[in-house]
């Protein structure tokens, strides 16, 4: 494995072994009579990866490379066709509250207020807790993302950034030790995005969590991560490279761009992404 300049505990949190996922096309009634062979689609194959505890890892790759599939597999939302997902030494079978998931489209329930959205998660994960307990916990997490005043608002009354902060609060409220994020800031404007990136970093520092972030932004990956996983273009995408980002923390958005180490990694990432994107575009 690559050497880690951080002095964090180097125990493995998540391990992917020969992970693969094939989507089989569902047979429809008329397909029985059709001469075409049913088509299946191999999204990812032979993914091997180790992620250490409490590290921040970004997965980056051209669009359609199966990044989201990979995240869904780790979250337990889909099951792999081959290979294993090992968390803390145990092979996982499905979703669990040890992993908090954050989606690009926030996925807040529109019929619940912000606090009710968090309470829904808490009630589901901790059915034994009392109502006041749950409420207090929900408010604490809303406060953590600076939204305790919006607790009785409905999602449609919130901006995109606020919605994503509620989603972050919801994911953290169940006290996971891993946070899985699927392009969480992709739909936000640049200013809101950088604000939320700072928020996420400070949350990550305070709460001991391993973060796996899917992104297509090189700058975002460089600013946030300890390690960047580069994926090849799909179908049958796999990991092409793992890059350790040994830049000092806290990283300053303005100064970091002058760092020669930063520029070197950035160039490497850009080259890779360009090459893989070209592969995607020329196939289609």
């Amino acid at each position, binding site marked *: 494995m690559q050497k880690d300049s951080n002095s964090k505990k180097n125990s493995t949190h998540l391990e992917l072994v020969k992970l693969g996922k094939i989507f089989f096309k569902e047979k429809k009634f008329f397909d029985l009579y059709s001469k075409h062979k049913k088509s299946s689609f191999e999204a990812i194959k032979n993914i091997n990866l180790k992620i250490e505890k409490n590290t921040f890892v970004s997965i980056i790759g051209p669009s359609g490379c199966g990044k989201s599939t990979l995240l869904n597999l780790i*979250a*337990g*939302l889909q099951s792999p066709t081959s290979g294993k997902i090992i968390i803390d030494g145990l092979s996982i079978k*499905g*979703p*669990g*509250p040890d*992993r*908090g*998931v954050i*989606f690009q*489209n926030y*996925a807040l*329930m*529109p*019929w*619940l207020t912000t606090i009710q959205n968090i309470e*829904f*998660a808490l009630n*589901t*994960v901790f059915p034994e807790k009392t109502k006041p307990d749950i409420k207090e916990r929900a408010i604490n997490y809303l406060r953590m993302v600076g939204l305790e005043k919006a607790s009785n608002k409905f*999602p*449609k009354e919130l901006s995109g950034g606020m919605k994503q902060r509620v989603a972050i609060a919801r994911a953290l409220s*169940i006290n996971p030790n891993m946070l899985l994020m699927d392009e969480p800031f992709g739909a936000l404007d640049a200013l809101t995005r950088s604000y939320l990136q700072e928020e996420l970093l400070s949350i990550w520092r305070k709460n001991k969590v391993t973060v796996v972030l899917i992104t297509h932004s090189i700058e975002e990956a460089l600013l946030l991560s300890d390690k960047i996983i580069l994926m090849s273009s799909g179908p049958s995408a796999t990991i092409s490279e793992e890059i350790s980002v040994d830049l000092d923390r806290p990283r300053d958005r303005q100064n970091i761009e002058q760092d020669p180490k930063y520029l070197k990694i950035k160039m490497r990432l850009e080259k890779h992404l360009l090459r893989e994107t070209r592969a995607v575009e020329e196939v289609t």
Partner: protein
Amino acid sequence: MNKVISKRLTFVVTILSLLIFIIIWQIIAQQGLLVKNFPGSFKTINALIWWVSDPFFDNGPNDLGIGFNLLISLRRVLIGYSLAVLVAIPLGVLMGMSKLAQSSLNPYVQLLKPVSPLAWLPVGLFVFRNSEITGIFVIFITSIWPTLINTAFGVASINPDYLRVSKSLGASKSITIRRVILPAIMPNILAGMRISMGTAWLVIVAAEMLLGTGIGYFIWNEWNNLSLENIFVAIIIIGFTGFILDQLFGFLQDKFDYSI
């Protein structure tokens, strides 16, 4: 400012058009332009006032106040409709969630949905030997389809993000149905219930002409009395009641409108 004026204007225009309609109706009737003895609007309004001023009298089944008849119809509709909704929502959720249920039930739904519910009337009379239960049964058959289809469609087209959140939290199937799926498809359920109510109210009038008592029977009875103005009274009251019922659902739909 502009909005206030236009609102007032629409009100004035509505009243004006109503007045013009009443006057033209009266002229056509008075001059016998349509057919002889066609009741004019004044006669109809007088009849309406007479029926509405004393809606609850009971001189036997063929001479019942219009309020009683309306309540009888409403009761049949509400019982049949409620039973239909109680069946349609769980069945719709099942059809939306399970491919097996979908493919085994869909043929019946598609086959029975286009049939006029009145075709079931003789079946009901034969089985139940009771006009009251038959009326409720016909309304049940009428009301079930739109709610069932809308519910199933709502479940099938639910935003997968909600289900993913629920699944990622490890929620059980029962929690997912009660706390995620049902609230998420409330707009679809209400839209289906609104259409169901509309058709039920259409069908009850026709069914009651054959069943005795109720607002539909009132119309049939007044036809036998050749009292067209009383039929117009019934039409106005049926229309108004249907409008109120529909607005009730409009109000509910606004409450459950999640769109951004």
